[in-house]
């Protein structure tokens, strides 16, 4: 990544779009202090971002998340909640929010892909974080699973959470995001609303506008 300048506003849903290998996951990993940028800085509420901020204020759902299969959903979430100083009532409410109340006593290895994603989202919400970062949250899900996850993201946003997620499924981004950013070859090539992108590229659909933005950078 290089020459990257991006600002996420408090309380918005921001979608990061890009082709495979564009640098979406790398950017998210930098945001989570999992990798250190060679130069440049990341700020959170005006101060340089530290791993303490991540542990207190950020919830994260990675792409292709696969939790311990030999634990039940309830065990997994309860042990994590206990470690994070949260009470078990919170765990039950998260299961309800994620629509997993009936499956919480099943072993995670028996969960479907959609259920695992929803469990991952519950993990991301355990600390009641201000910022939720999701890497391709709907990847591999059927249309029902996708719509459930997107519905959850909207609900979270209504609760005042800032949601930042990466995807290459344009229709989903169009449905839920306030603003979008397009990343290509490690550079941010567009930041704004979908309407602004359509107007800028003079196109009727987001897909055409996205491809046109990418091609203009090639």
């Amino acid at each position, binding site marked *: 990544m290089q020459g990257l300048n991006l600002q996420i506003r408090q309380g918005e849903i921001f979608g990061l779009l890009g082709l495979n290998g564009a640098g979406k996951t790398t950017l998210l990993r930098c945001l*989570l202090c999992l990798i250190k940028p060679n130069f440049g800085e990341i700020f959170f509420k005006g101060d340089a971002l530290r791993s303490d901020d991540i542990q207190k204020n950020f919830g994260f759902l*990675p792409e292709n*998340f*696969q939790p*311990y299969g*030999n*634990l039940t959903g309830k065990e997994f979430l309860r042990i*994590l909640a206990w*470690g*994070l100083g949260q009470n078990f009532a919170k765990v039950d409410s998260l299961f309800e929010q994620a629509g997993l109340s009936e499956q919480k006593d099943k072993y995670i290895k028996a969960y479907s892909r959609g259920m695992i994603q929803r469990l991952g989202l519950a993990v991301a919400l355990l600390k009641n974080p201000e910022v939720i970062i999701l890497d391709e949250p709907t990847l591999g899900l059927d249309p029902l699973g996708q719509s459930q996850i997107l519905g959850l993201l909207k609900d979270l946003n209504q609760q005042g959470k800032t949601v930042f997620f990466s995807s290459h499924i344009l229709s989903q981004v169009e449905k839920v995001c306030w603003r979008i950013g397009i990343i290509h070859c490690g550079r941010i090539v567009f930041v704004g609303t979908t309407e602004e992108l359509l107007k800028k590229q003079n196109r009727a659909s987001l897909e055409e506008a996205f491809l046109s933005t990418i091609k203009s950078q090639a």
Partner: protein
Amino acid sequence: MRKIASVALLNFKQAIRDRIFLGVIFFFVFFLAFCALLGKLSPGETGKVLRNAGLAGIELSALILVVFSLTFSFYREKDSRMLEIYLSNFSRTAYISGKLGGYLLISVFYLALSAIGYILLLCFYGAFLWQPIIGLYPLFLKLSIIVGFCLVFSCLFSSPVIALLSSLSLYFASETAYPALKVIGLEAGEVKVFLFKCLYYLLPNMNKLDIKSLAIYGRLPELSFFLLISLYSFGYILFLWLIARFIFTRREY
């Protein structure tokens, strides 16, 4: 502390329900049956053979369990993105400490479980002595050191196979370092002996942690010996934890 305990408990629960754990239990049961056969083939020495082979079986199966289970779980967590979940919630130090704690807990649990099988076998053949059961404590210390080495190698290498082979090689090197030093002392020159002595002191002194040969005859070293080996082992584990932490906090995932 809660964060460390949380990582430890998650690792413990996942590992004791894993196929590796169940496989090792199976292996141990077969080994006990083999011990019983060996005992029958050694008339007059049945009790001693049962006690000795049983302890050796516990050591071998526990070694396989901790080395395979820890190494594979470490890399599986990277592949399954569990590591990212941990690191977005807990500090890297808490993760490494939790991993170490979890696998020490697994060692204790497995030793307790295998001790039950061992005691039952000895009682069945009328060969029970309580001293070999005390002999499981130095075995736990040995396993703890190996857990520490597995952690260091898993943090250091990006391939689980290399980490696994390094851990096993180190175990066998430290087990054979003392007799090798004796042999080299007889034949080699001063420089070679000095170099080998340096290596010997760097490796964990597993030879001193082995009291099998006394315990099977119903004898035990003095209490001060147990205090000394406990101090030595915990010091060594602390040293390994520091190395693992140093590597892990500097790596990018």
